[in-house]
């Protein structure tokens, strides 16, 4: 009861002050204080979440950034293992890690491939998803069945599908090469040749990504009013014109969001590459995140500082891409 009374009083007071804003600026309390007074209940409600996020996201993030400016590795960080107490002996090295990474060809090679990988995966899965969604948006026999079948890759755990693909891709015993052999075509070294391995990982990722695009596009398509199509038809627009001038603009909001999200996911798509090729053959399919993983979990002693620096660079790249993308959309008049 007391809470409610207090709230309504504050609300009334706030309403008063908002109404009076501009007329009597001197009498207003501080902006921050006012929002707090108005929304203290909301703040109290989100406080646990903010705290938890601060602890599980904020702290590691800040610590990772700090580590990226040191020479910390597995051998010089602090450890207490049973009777062994090993003090931390790493020290700050400023921006040396970043300098080393950016002046090394490995980073640029990995970045180029990561960009190729992201762009081709997103473009292909978007195109396929849109095509399938357009087809499924019409009334046809067995539509539910097709929708279910197409959503299947999404329903299977990623590692299961990736391992299945790996069996299919096996050069000597895999089903794909058996099929090719039946057609009289030589076996393709799917995962053993750098170019084929790249094609293979993209294929699998597109296969995994299409259902997401499909569902999102289907939702977008269904939100386009049917009257628009009817009107266009009356005006004599053909199918392509209707698609070009009604469907595509109508899908734009959904599509732009989906492409951004999918782009970020693909950029950081660890499981597909790691489980399918482990970044191989050699390092041909290694993207930025799998390389950062390698630094921090595979090489010995584990290079925490270097891996953290890679992580910060990946974060920075993604932030830049996201901001640039939003700007570009806004320029086209998109409210986002």
């Amino acid at each position: 009861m007391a809470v409610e009374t207090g709230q309504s009083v504050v609300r009334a007071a706030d309403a008063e002050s908002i109404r009076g804003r501009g007329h009597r600026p001197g009498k207003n309390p501080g902006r921050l204080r006012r929002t707090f007074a108005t929304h203290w209940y909301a703040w109290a409600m989100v406080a646990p979440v903010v705290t938890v996020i601060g602890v599980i996201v904020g702290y590691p993030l800040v610590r990772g950034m700090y580590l990226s400016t040191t020479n910390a590795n597995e051998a010089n960080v602090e450890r207490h293992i049973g009777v062994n107490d090993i003090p931390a002996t790493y020290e700050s090295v400023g921006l040396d890690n970043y300098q080393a990474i950016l002046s090394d060809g490995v980073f640029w090679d990995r970045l180029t491939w990561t960009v190729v990988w992201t762009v081709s995966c997103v473009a292909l899965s978007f195109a396929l998803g849109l095509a399938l969604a357009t087809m499924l948006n019409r009334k046809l026999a067995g539509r539910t069945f097709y929708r279910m079948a197409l959503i299947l890759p999404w329903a299977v755990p990623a590692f299961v599908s990736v391992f299945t693909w790996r069996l299919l891709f096996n050069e000597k015993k895999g089903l794909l090469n058996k099929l090719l052999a039946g057609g009289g075509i030589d076996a393709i070294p799917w995962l053993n040749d750098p170019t084929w391995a790249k094609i293979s990982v993209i294929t699998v990722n597109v296969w995994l990504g299409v259902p997401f695009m499909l569902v999102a596009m289907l939702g977008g398509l269904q939100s386009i009013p049917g009257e628009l199509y009817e009107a266009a038809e009356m005006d004599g627009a053909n199918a392509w014109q209707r698609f070009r001038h009604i469907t595509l603009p109508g899908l734009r909001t959904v599509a732009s969001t989906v492409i951004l999200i999918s782009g970020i996911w693909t950029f950081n798509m660890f499981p597909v590459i790691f489980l399918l090729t482990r970044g191989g053959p050699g390092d041909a399919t290694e993207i930025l995140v799998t390389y950062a993983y390698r630094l921090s979990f595979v090489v010995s002693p584990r290079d925490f500082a270097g891996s953290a620096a890679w992580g910060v660079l990946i974060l920075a790249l993604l932030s830049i891409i996201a901001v640039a993308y939003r700007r570009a959309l806004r320029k086209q008049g998109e409210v986002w």
Partner: protein
Amino acid sequence: MRRGIAATGLIAALAMTAAACGGDDEGSGGSKGGKLSGTVTFWDTSNDAEKGAYEKIAKGFEKLHPDVKVNYVNVPFGEANAKFKNAAGGNSGAPDVMRTEVAWTQDFASLGYLAPLDDTVALDKADDYLPQAAASTKFKGKTYAAPQTIDTLALFYNKKMLKASGVDVPKSFDEVKSAAKKIKSKSGKTGLYLRGDDPYYYLPYLYGEGGDLLDTKSKKVTVDDPEGAKAFSVMKDLVDSKAAVTDASDGYNNQLNAFKDGDVAMALDGPWSIEGALQGKQFKGDKGNLGVAPAPAGSKRQGAPQGGWNLAAYAGSGNLDAAYEFIKYMSSAKVQQQTTEQLSLLPTRTSVYDVKSVKDNQMVQFFKPAVAKSVQRPWIPEANALFEPIRLQLEKVLSGKSSPEKGAEGIGDAYRKLLKDYK
């Protein structure tokens, strides 16, 4: 599921940034009045064909110490190193006893993950160990593990296939090449399976040309000497001349399948694959068809790397007394005899070689002299890290993107980066 992937990614990212943060201790038990109790978690790295036998043997410890529960966990070889480091460095979830590859032992010990075993019950009758096997357990004057099994690479061959093609067992890689030609023309099958995905299999070629990875005495990188490049060109020649087939991924399974199904006549492999090979259609019910010979020689000498497995106790174990006792049991003469009888793995104790069933084991008869002549690897903390640069170059050389000389150079450069005080 998409969300699942995103969550996995998030967790991985967090783990990456938080990798240096600590955790809690776990485990309890110990000895109460001399009697052992509690749980011993044992991470075993044996392969699919071997793990059943190992689990039974490990559980046998419970009969000797009824109050101790053995928690047997099989961790695939490929993941074991990373998994142990995650758990040990993060102070949570590490086992009490770990089966470590010989080259991991110094790495783990140098990071403080292992408990020294000197003057504990774990090192029982230490004089009995083969000196070679014992060498791989030492780091800076202390002993960090008990040798469990020792091995080396050898040439596995299909007796019937060689006979049908009228070739003798090859003694050198040159002979492998000419034998493969005959096998191809007679049966259409390939001569050799060459592991192109695993750097360990580069070593017989390197040693064969008289080279080595490092000279630890004079602190010098020797892999980019001419011998290193020569080793690469021998491998590339075998693949290019179609004497051998290779893969850049899944090599272990592909090799074993190709060999046991009779798609290839020969393969370089170790005792850990004997059990798996015998289950294949070429050898099932016809054990005698499996032949094993010394790894082929290069132009200078015959040399295969010394490998094997040690048993180490995690320094943070809450039940070290039981862990020591478990190591003593698992490396005891009796258990080593059992693993030889069941899996044809090689004992590390000289006394076990006198037991009749071990002496009569064909595989032991073959592998014992091979192990005695095998080349010791550098027992330094970075030993395991020496493989990754070879893996990268091996792929480049075999696919023709890099010349053998460039490949060897690339490994040498990576080593000098890794080992700061090496020339």
